[in-house]
């Protein structure tokens, strides 16, 4: 399920009252911009033609009081735009003061994936399922560099800082699937640190939490981790590096360099990820993989192995993303 839009779209979908009002704000601001700029465009074009060299024209300037003009064309636009400052500030203050009955989602950014945890304990990678009609507060933190969680349909974003929590809140009122992004440049795979925000009714959300929530997303989460740690750069079917292809590996016998043959079970995979320099080198390969011990947390490792297991069923197709 992905948020499909037509080829050319000129207005972004909005999913909350604040988003709709932000749209009104920007539309009104655009009207003001046109009021302030179109006269300039028309003016310079008209004057350039009307008063061009060699054309007879009245060039007798009329004794304009230039100070008065100067001050007025500085002050009037300034005062007009101040309306928009106040309007924007009002919306901003609303967005900074969540109501008391919010539901709190924990979000953790790391290179290059998002982890979300629901209040009931279920967690997701990159995708986020949320109910509408309920104020939701997302508490954000980063494990490494600065990221930012950006939900365009709700017209909000907030930085994920490594040393302290930041927050954003919203109350969605429209169901559907929308994009979510990392909007603060965070290194190599910044542009794939994105996912889907699925807004659903309260009952659908409860259903999702109890049924699909944990299971369906486990494999997707594992795939996100597989991508986030860059496993595919060496282990994908199309990778340049000479490394064992992992699609369909689980459960198969592996011939080792020292002549033994072992089965690629969970423990074998776990051992190979955490300690690739052990004595279990597969035959025909060089020892070039770095150790991920202390790099990959235990829960991520579990999801990754789940993904590699599931990948056996779908075989090669999946591994190429």
């Amino acid at each position, binding site marked *: 399920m992905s948020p*499909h*839009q*037509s*080829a*050319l779209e*000129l207005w*972004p979908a909005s999913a909350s009252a604040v988003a709709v009002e*932000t749209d009104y704000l*920007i539309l009104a*601001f655009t009207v003001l*911009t046109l009021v*302030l700029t179109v006269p*300039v465009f028309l*003016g*310079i074009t008209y*004057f350039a033609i009307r*008063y*061009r*060299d060699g054309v007879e024209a009245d*060039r007798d*300037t009329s*004794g*304009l009081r*230039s*100070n008065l*003009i*100067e001050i007025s064309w*500085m002050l009037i636009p300034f005062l007009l735009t101040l309306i*928009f400052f106040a*309007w*924007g*500030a009002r919306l*901003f203050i609303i*967005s900074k003061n969540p109501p008391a009955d919010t539901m709190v989602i924990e979000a953790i950014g790391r*290179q290059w994936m998002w982890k979300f945890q629901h209040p009931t304990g279920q967690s997701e990678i990159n995708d986020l399922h949320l109910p509408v009609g309920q104020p939701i507060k997302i508490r954000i933190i980063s494990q490494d*560099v*600065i990221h*930012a969680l*950006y939900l*365009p*349909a709700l*017209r909000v*974003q*907030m*930085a994920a*800082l*490594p*040393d*302290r929590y930041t927050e954003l809140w919203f109350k969605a009122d429209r169901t559907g699937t929308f*994009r979510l992004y990392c*909007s*603060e*440049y*965070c*290194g*190599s*795979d*910044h*542009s*794939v640190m994105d996912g889907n925000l699925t807004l659903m009714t309260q009952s659908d959300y409860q259903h999702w939490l109890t049924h699909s929530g944990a299971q369906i997303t486990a494999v997707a989460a594992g795939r996100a981790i597989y991508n986030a740690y860059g496993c595919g750069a060496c282990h994908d079917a199309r990778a340049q590096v000479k490394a064992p292809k992992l699609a369909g590996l689980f459960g198969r016998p592996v011939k080792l360099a020292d002549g033994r043959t072992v089965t690629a079970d969970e423990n074998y995979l776990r051992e190979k990820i955490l300690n690739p320099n052990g004595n279990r080198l597969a035959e025909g390969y060089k020892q070039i993989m770095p150790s991920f011990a202390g790099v990959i947390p235990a829960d991520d490792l579990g999801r990754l192995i789940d993904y590699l297991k599931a990948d056996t069923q779908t075989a090669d197709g999946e591994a190429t993303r």
Partner: protein
Amino acid sequence: MSGTSAIESGFAEREPHIPEPTLDRPIDYLHAQSTLRSWFLATDHKRIAILYLASITAFFIIGAVAAGIVRLALVVPDGAILTNDTYNKAFTIHGVVMVWFFLIPSIPATFGNFLIPLMIGAKDLAFPKLNLTSWYIFMAGALFTMVSVVLGGVDTGWTFYAPLSTAFSNSWVLPALIGVTIVGFSSILTGLNFVVTIHTMRTPGMTWFRLPIFVWAHYATSLIFLLATPVITTALILLILERAFHIGVFDPAYGGDPVLFQHLFWFYSHPAVYIMVLPGMGVISEIVPAFAQKKLFGYRFVAYASIGLASVTFFVWGHHMFVNGQSDLASLAFSALSFAVAVPSAVKVYNWTATIHKGRIRLDTPMLYAMGYIGLFVLGGLTGLYLATLAINQHIHATYFVVAHFHYIMVGGTVLAFLGGLHFWWPKFTGRMYNEAWGRISALFIFIGFNVTFFPQFILGYLGMPRRYGTYPPEFQLLNVLSSAGATILAAGYLFPMVYLLYSLWFGRRAPANPWDAKGLEWETASPPPPHNFLSLPEVPRVPYDYPIQERESGRQHT
């Protein structure tokens, strides 16, 4: 036009044995000496300006090629053309080179260097050797940055945010950082030279309010060079030490604060926007009156505005951090101050529009650029206000809207002013006229190409496409392809001047001292000027911009 119509083979015939300089045939600064050594050890501000012009043109080409690579990669949404890492390096090189090695030195170091002494009636800048040193420092910084590019590139973005740049990036960050730090000293020394020159070297009679706006704008710019650059130097030194020795200033594990770097960075880099914008305003304020043959409307206002903008711009840096966990009160204050600085700068375009009103307009190449500037700059300025509006910022921060906005300011503003100024003063710099028809065609190409490239990016940003994305959702492809198509038109527009301007150096018509009937001391000496600028001390006009058409100043009783 020189009297002899025979084509002279420029450099060859102009060896030392030349008759006594006279007004119609002086020894000009280009031919006074011709050895390579006389160029690389030149202390003449005009020659140093030419050195700068050559170097920043080279950097412009490097930055433009990187931009071309970026636009090429974005033709497809799935990153099939470039890997993410290569894409990140391409946009970083584009940003670093364009900001630090083209935009910031562009107008001040070339036109400012060449023209300030001419405009105020001085023989040179106050410290000619220091001026040459600035150029060498600039080239040393450039060398470091190029080393980083050649070794494999940087992938941190031109903003070098910690901790990505200090602890996480595996690219050649250190040489690039060292290069950018060094270049800062070149800016400081140039600014220092300008401030001292404008204060002390004005010819008798050249009072402050007889200075052209170009000089005022450079005075304001130089103050920013002096007062803001040292802060980024410190920030960058700390960043270098953090990356090399992990001293911990920006590392939360040791009680440091990564956001502190952003504060120090934007304390310089927001004023740096005005380093790029103010000189451009100065250029336009020279071109528009000359091609309208009319006094600049509201001279004193524009002069004061330059200084005012340079001051207020030091207090708005926080508007780059509305969504970075800054306190809400600080965000409100920074938003309000940003409105206070943006509106007066954007409405300066009304002054130029009013100058065109009832003028005697000639639509030569420099004027076309100036008119393009007026249109694009006002759009860039007002879209900046969208970003300063807190609620809108929460949506379009770090999206393509920002990219479009600052390209309207920096390309629509600074680059157009640079090209306009280059065409306006080309006869003065080189003593040759370029082909006018080609000039107009390329101005048109650049205007159209620019808008096709960057206007779609406003829409992309509002639709929610984040910047610095090497891959993007497929629904954004059409607008991205449009943008890339525009970039090819823009590239053609940039290529033309490089060809016909170079061609004019050897085959162009000889330029008279004042080809545009413009006012200002630089037009009262020969084209190109003699080594010490004036053969006899110029007379200072009673008022600046004493063009045939004058606004009747009923406001005079107030002043």
